[in-house]
């Protein structure tokens, strides 16, 4: 008989937790893109949204820690699962043709995820850590017009823009499998909905990274 402890630690529970954190991050990415995209349309709109996100107590005290937890959980759980999965086959095949039955991206989520993790270190160093220092260490007075210029400063550097674009390519690869995989894990698969889910996943995994790449290139080209 399965114990309650077993239920929490079961492979399906781990899979479900991984999927739910992925779905949360998918939603976050979309709202991040929408807010960032306003920087292309209007400096004022971008500044007002950024000011709201940077000063609203619910966003700062409640949502930001949840987001951080979601990101950390997704990465840590991903590593744990990878280690467990590697342990399940001690002797490897002399000849294995994984490409005959599955996509490269689905078999290499760890590598695309690792690159995204490394990129997030750069991204946090560029935006989040200076933001924390600005607000909580230096305790500067809030200037609601500073956000657009901070964005432009980062995307002035061609090496950084190149790195961001490369990271979004890896993000696209990760999302290509991750979108439909997370829905499969929560049980959303049947002949009626699966073709639609796959199409939506394809659109999301291309459009969201392309949107971020467009924003980075837009600001870089504007700075020339």
């Amino acid at each position: 008989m399965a114990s309650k402890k077993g239920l929490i630690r079961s492979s399906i529970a781990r899979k479900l937790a991984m999927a739910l954190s992925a779905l949360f991050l998918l939603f976050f990415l979309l709202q991040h893109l929408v807010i960032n995209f306003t920087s292309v349309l209007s400096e004022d709109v971008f500044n007002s949204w950024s000011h709201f996100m940077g000063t609203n107590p619910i966003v700062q005290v409640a949502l930001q820690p949840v987001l951080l937890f979601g990101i950390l959980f997704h990465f840590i759980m991903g590593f744990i699962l990878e280690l467990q999965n590697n342990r399940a086959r001690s002797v490897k095949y002399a000849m294995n043709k994984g490409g005959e039955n599955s996509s490269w991206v689905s078999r290499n989520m760890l590598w695309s995820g690792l690159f995204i993790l490394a990129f997030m270190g750069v991204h946090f160093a560029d935006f989040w850590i200076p933001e924390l220092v600005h607000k909580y260490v230096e305790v500067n007075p809030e200037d609601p017009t500073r956000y657009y210029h901070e964005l432009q400063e980062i995307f002035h550097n061609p090496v950084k823009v190149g790195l961001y674009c490369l990271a979004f390519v890896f993000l696209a690869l990760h999302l290509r499998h991750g979108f439909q995989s997370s829905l499969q894990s929560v049980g959303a698969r049947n002949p009626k909905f699966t073709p639609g889910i796959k199409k939506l996943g394809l659109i999301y995994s291309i459009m969201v990274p392309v949107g971020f790449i467009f924003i980075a290139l837009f600001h870089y080209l504007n700075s020339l």
Partner: protein
Amino acid sequence: MNLTLKIWRQKNAKDKGKMVEYPISGIDGDMSFLEMLDVLNEELIEKGDEPVAFDHDCREGICGMCSLYINGEAHGPDRLVTTCQLHMRKFKDGETIYIEPFRANAFPVVKDLVVDRSSFDRIQHAGGYISVNTSGNTQDANSIPIEKEKADAAFNAAACIGCGACVATCKNSSAMLFVSAKVSQYALLPQGEVEAKDRVLNMVHQMDLEGFGNCTNTGACEVECPKGISLENIARMNREYIKASMSK
């Protein structure tokens, strides 16, 4: 056809094992893969060498015994067939063929190409059945009307022969496709509904105890399954598991 075979040889469960090369000639394209191995074994016996141990029973594609990983794929390069139904015409003259046992810690090698899949039996024992009184008063199953769509899905899930190709081919050695097929075939039918919650909880619990890996939805199992068991079964098992976890 002249071929070079690279075969995993392992004396017993404790032996480290290694790949050994065997040239073989005069192979007919209409031979099954297992018949080709029979020819090799006859040659080895004639020479006084130890024949290659491999599992087989029905040779009709339904027993699921022939657990061979051929040229990097479970049951070889053909689709929807077990090794006994794989024909040598699928290979080219002069080709080198790698033949390995199904690899997973939950499927320990017994000898050469023979693996112990009793972990699957223990998962079945944990709940892959319905409790029916068979003392003579059993109700005829056909007396309960069942929607055709559900009956077909249950039948398709029941086509799983438990060969283990899903585990062998999965990069994580996950047994989700096998367990989900067994869970689905009962969960879809009224006879199986009564014990559905305990079944899914206990079978998944046993699957985890056996040391299989976690499913990451690569879909390789569905492609390599000789009976075409669908990933929809895994999604159904996930739903069944979530439902059962919340209400038990």
